């Protein structure tokens, strides 16, 4: 039961924690804890346990470091402080950035639209209320798993082969897998909504479409906006990554600069990209707070607050209830238990804890709902023509995507050569790469926060480092790491782990800032040091949702492992790039199928892990 589908590293740690425990008594009262997580595995430890993967990694590292690259690395770091300000360089970086942002925005918009339509089409509620059957929804859900399982980079490279080099390729490459993801998340949310309102409307004779819109629209909107915003951030990262593989924009420039070791020019692009990314994240964060949307990843979902306090809590804060009800249930998105009220500031003993103020700040004022609606419409009105203009400026012709070029007929497929590929090794390496990278990312984020806990000044530095990590497409980190490390699995895992650490770290920080932890304050008040107070007081409550998100992230990393293929010896990704450059369609097809299968299994395991972790006790 423990850790079904959790990365093996975590699982084994958890199991050790589990079996290593001495039970000081049975469970004489027969308490309700079917899952013994709260006692069996110390939650805060489970959170940092994945970082144990550092031990083998650090052990291997000295053997991997080669002396040569330190000069280059020093040059690289120095260049960070003196990016090239040459107008030509700046101009081309800005132009590239424009393309990247354009691709991200258009791809994102297309994916949200696509996702919304597909979500409706794959919702059981919609099908039941429209025609009484559920099977079309289930069928579509299964079908949607396929586009989702293939990384946007692969979509990009495949589309490039089929329709040639055109701006719409990068956009479609983002829109297809993202659309399927949005569809799944929204579909789950739709079906998770209480069906009472809908049934009531239908009973009173309201036609299906209107009933659906009225009953499901408003509760779905905040989740859609919140998740949509999150997807926009992802789209910016993806657009950069696609550029690294030649699909246009700043990524292309970054890669070329790095390959020719022009670090000053490289940093010009990096700083610009960082500025845009932070602007986007702050802007979206601001909107999220303004429109009272749920926090993206219900990390830090309620767990403190005794049951005894709950009735009071529920009536105490309208916002608490509203937030909980909106908590989306998508990948990594939240507790599956919307009935749980938000944790509330309850002790007046901590007047400066800030929690109270924050929650008060969130309480919707009577006029806020109407205002929110107006602003959303305004935003839509601004964005729509902008998207159209962008598409025209970039020369996007969606119809161009239908202009299929015939694939070259390069002789009969030779399945013997496909079978001759070292499959077990390829798959094994890919899985190992995923596990190591995931454990690094999941474990390091809380560990680093712990390390810097006593030093407030270190926090902005860590945030900057994480922002850079998010920003850096993994293949570029891999190339950079090659200046220092020998190629191979660990190098690839470090690159992948570093990137995802940036993503996870930010979420963790956000969640831990958002969720009041009275226990942490209490510990500090009793003279416990900042690190132990954080570990005991805050991580205890965060562990479940954080690990649940980590499980989702591991699934993402599996998909992403293709992008570090160019480091060599990195499993399926490496072989895929090789087959692509040989135009070996048969191998490519086989590799894609295997990849898709792996990611589907991975997704399933990660889902199970999440459900297990988030299951109400």
């Amino acid at each position, binding site marked *: 039961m423990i850790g079904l589908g959790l990365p093996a590293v975590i699982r084994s740690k958890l199991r050790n924690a589990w079996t290593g425990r001495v039970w000081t008594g049975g469970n004489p009262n027969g308490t309700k804890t079917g899952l013994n997580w709260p006692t069996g595995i110390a939650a805060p430890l489970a959170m940092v346990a994945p970082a144990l993967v550092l031990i083998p990694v650090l052990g291997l590292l000295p053997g991997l470091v080669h002396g040569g690259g330190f000069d280059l690395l020093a040059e690289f770091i120095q260049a960070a402080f003196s990016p090239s300000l040459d107008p030509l360089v700046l101009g*081309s970086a800005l132009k590239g950035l424009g393309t990247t942002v354009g691709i991200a925005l258009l791809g994102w918009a297309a994916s949200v639209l696509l996702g919304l339509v597909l979500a409706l089409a794959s919702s059981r509620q919609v099908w039941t209320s429209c025609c009484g059957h559920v099977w079309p929804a289930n069928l579509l859900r299964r079908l949607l798993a396929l586009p989702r399982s293939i990384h946007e980079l692969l979509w990009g490279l495949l589309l490039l082969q089929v329709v040639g080099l055109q701006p719409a390729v990068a956009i479609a490459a983002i829109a297809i897998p993202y659309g399927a993801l949005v569809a799944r998340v929204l579909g789950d949310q739709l079906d998770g909504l209480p069906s009472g309102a809908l049934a009531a409307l239908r009973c009173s004779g309201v036609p299906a479409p209107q009933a659906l819109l009225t009953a499901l629209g408003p509760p779905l909107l905040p989740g859609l906006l919140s998740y949509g915003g999150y997807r926009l951030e992802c789209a910016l990262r993806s657009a950069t990554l696609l550029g690294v593989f030649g699909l246009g924009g700043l990524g292309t*420039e970054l890669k070329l600069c790095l390959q020719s070791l022009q670090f000053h020019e490289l940093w010009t692009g990096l700083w610009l990209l960082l500025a845009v990314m932070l602007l986007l994240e702050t802007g979206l964060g601001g909107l999220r707070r303004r429109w009272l949307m749920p926090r993206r990843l219900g990390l830090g979902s309620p767990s403190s607050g005794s049951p005894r306090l709950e009735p009071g809590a529920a009536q105490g804060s309208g916002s608490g209830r509203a937030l909980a009800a909106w908590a989306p249930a998508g990948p990594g998105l939240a507790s599956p238990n919307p009935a749980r009220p938000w944790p509330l500031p309850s002790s007046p003993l901590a007047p400066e804890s800030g929690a109270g103020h924050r929650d008060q700040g969130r309480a919707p004022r009577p006029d806020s709902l109407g205002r929110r609606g107006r602003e959303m419409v305004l935003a839509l009105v601004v964005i729509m023509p902008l998207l159209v203009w962008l598409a025209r400026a970039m020369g996007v012709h969606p119809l161009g995507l239908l202009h299929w070029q015939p694939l*070259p007929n390069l002789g009969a497929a030779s399945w013997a050569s496909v079978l001759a590929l070292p499959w077990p090794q390829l798959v094994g390496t890919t899985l190992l790469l995923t596990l190591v990278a995931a454990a690094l990312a999941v474990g390091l984020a809380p560990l680093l926060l712990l390390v810097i806990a006593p030093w407030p000044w270190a926090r902005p530095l860590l945030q900057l480092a994480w922002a850079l990590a998010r920003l850096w497409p993994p293949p570029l980190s891999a190339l950079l790491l090659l200046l220092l490390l020998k190629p191979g699995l660990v190098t690839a895992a470090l690159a992948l782990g570093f990137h995802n650490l940036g993503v996870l770290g930010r979420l963790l920080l956000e969640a831990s800032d958002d969720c009041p932890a009275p226990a942490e304050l209490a510990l500090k008040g009793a003279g416990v040091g900042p690190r132990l107070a954080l570990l005991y007081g805050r991580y205890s409550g965060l562990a479940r949702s954080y690990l649940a998100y980590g499980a989702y992230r591991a699934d993402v990393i599996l998909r992403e492992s293709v992008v570090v293929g160019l480091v*060599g010896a990195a499993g399926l990704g490496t072989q895929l*790039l090789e087959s692509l450059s040989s135009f070996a369609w048969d191998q490519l097809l086989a590799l894609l199928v295997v990849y898709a299968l792996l990611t589907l299994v991975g997704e399933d395991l990660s889902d199970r892990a999440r459900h297990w972790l988030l299951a109400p006790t």
Partner: protein
Amino acid sequence: MAIRERWAAVLAGLSLVLLPAALPGGTPGGPSLLPPAQAEQPQGQAKPVLRIGAIPDQKPEKLNRLYPLVAAELERQLGVQVTYVPVVDYTAAVTAFRTGDLDLVWFGGLTGVQARLQKPGAQVLAQRDIDVAFHSIFIANTGSGLKQIRDVKGLTELKGKRFTFGSESSTSGRLMPQYFLAKGGVKLADFAGGAPGFSGSHDTTIALVQSGAYDAGVVNEQVWRTSLRDGRANRAKVFAIWRTPGYPDYHWIGQPNLDQRFGKGFSRKLQGAIISWRTTNPQQKQILTLFGAQQFSKSTAANYKQIELVGRQIGKIR
């Protein structure tokens, strides 16, 4: 305060959305995206544009210096509009040629064969004097313990070393070296880590071997010489251990439909223009110098039979 914060958030969001609009150029078509007009170019339109490209085998700044010169010169000679479209990797160049997004491409030996196989009717137009017998140079880090070797058998020294090729599809950086390695009895799995690396370009190979990331690598001779000359390659850290025998390499390939689009006899004119470049003309001299050649000469597909053979042997051509 709260209000100001909110507005800041809204403004931030808006400015972000508007950012692309504020950028210079109006057409944010990045370096490797085709300018919009070219994405679809209806045949028989008044002024077709000749789009030239090249495999990105070297530093981008060099490519960006060289090919606009080529475009300008061809434009002058042929009287049609010529633009240079950069691509990011070898495979993309082949694909862009197949999908008709590039009209005239400077291919390597292997990519040229791949392109012609994927686009029947494509014409081999010209090659440099040095391409008749091109060479690769095996290079090694001074700290690797490798020494200069005499013949192909000496390549066995590379077994157990960390080794990198250039691009997967490079003729001088991968295909022919792999062929010679096989001749010398070295399999790819014999390298440290069970596989060689692929740095992506010749310049990167030199940088990585020089840094010690790889013990050894292989690059095209012309790039190696240039790097030595301009000091990018540090003789104290990286040195040549072996020069391969000659083989045919780079060449210009044109689309099969050039005559239809640009008028009868256009491909012939194009070929004539390229092979007419001489060092006596200052403009053309600059181009030839950047190409590292004295002049171009006619070439035919037959010259690349050997490459195709090796490509099939190694599995890069199927």
